[in-house]
């Protein structure tokens, strides 16, 4: 214990490794939201994943994932304050990211079908950067469309164009 009275001053005041810092941050948020459940953190392939498993995680995920995406944004900046990090923070809850990725890819497939059949570019709704990347990578494997992003954050969106 130091003599600076730093107890309770938050993560920045403590000497935690990133996984411990993320776990503490998530415990704090889950408690503040009045939720129960189990928080787990694991690191693999340059991705630090914080996971909430519980009965009622709806409030933690939020409408269209806006709360879980906000938690992910804050966690990246709080756990890695020095800026762009080679480690990416992902926050998940009851398999939400997997379900969301499947829904995004299904939506992207429909839009790509439209682009190919009409011969015209199709715009998707705005998505955060990490979700745009999922769609870019998924559609690249189709081989019959090209994708790029337009607009400024947080309204940046994907455009799907048919390949000639």
């Amino acid at each position: 214990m130091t003599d600076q009275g730093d107890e309770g001053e938050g993560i920045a005041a403590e000497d935690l490794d990133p996984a411990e810092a993320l776990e503490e941050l998530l415990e704090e948020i889950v408690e503040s939201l009045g939720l129960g459940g189990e928080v787990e953190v694991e690191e693999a392939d340059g991705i630090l994943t914080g996971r909430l498993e519980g009965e009622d995680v709806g409030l933690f995920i939020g409408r269209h994932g806006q709360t879980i995406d906000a938690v992910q944004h804050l966690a990246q900046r709080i756990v890695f304050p020095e800026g762009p990090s080679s480690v990416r923070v992902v926050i998940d809850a009851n398999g939400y990211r997997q379900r969301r990725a499947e829904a995004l890819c299904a939506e992207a497939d429909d839009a790509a079908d439209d682009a190919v059949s009409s011969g015209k570019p199709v715009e998707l709704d705005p998505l955060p950067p990490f979700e745009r990347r999922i769609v870019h990578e998924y559609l690249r494997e189709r081989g019959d469309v090209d994708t790029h992003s337009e607009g400024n954050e947080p309204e940046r969106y994907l455009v799907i164009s048919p390949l000639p």
Partner: protein
Amino acid sequence: MPTDNPKRLLEYLAEGLVDDPDAVAVEQFEEDGGTIVLELCVAAEDYGRVIGRGGRTAHALRTVVKAAAAGEGSHVLLDIVD
């Protein structure tokens, strides 16, 4: 019955984001109709840390603090004061 949960969470998150956690201060006011207003102050050089590029961090703070208030049935507004 509103608690100070959203306020405590905002302080905790802001202290995690900034370089100078001792300068983080949150004032809580209650408006007519029960809306809670939270005013966040940080050190002058830390405003960029709590606002973020294109306001993304401020937006994320608002979203999470609103969720904490919604969890107890109250409504909260976040002001970042400079």
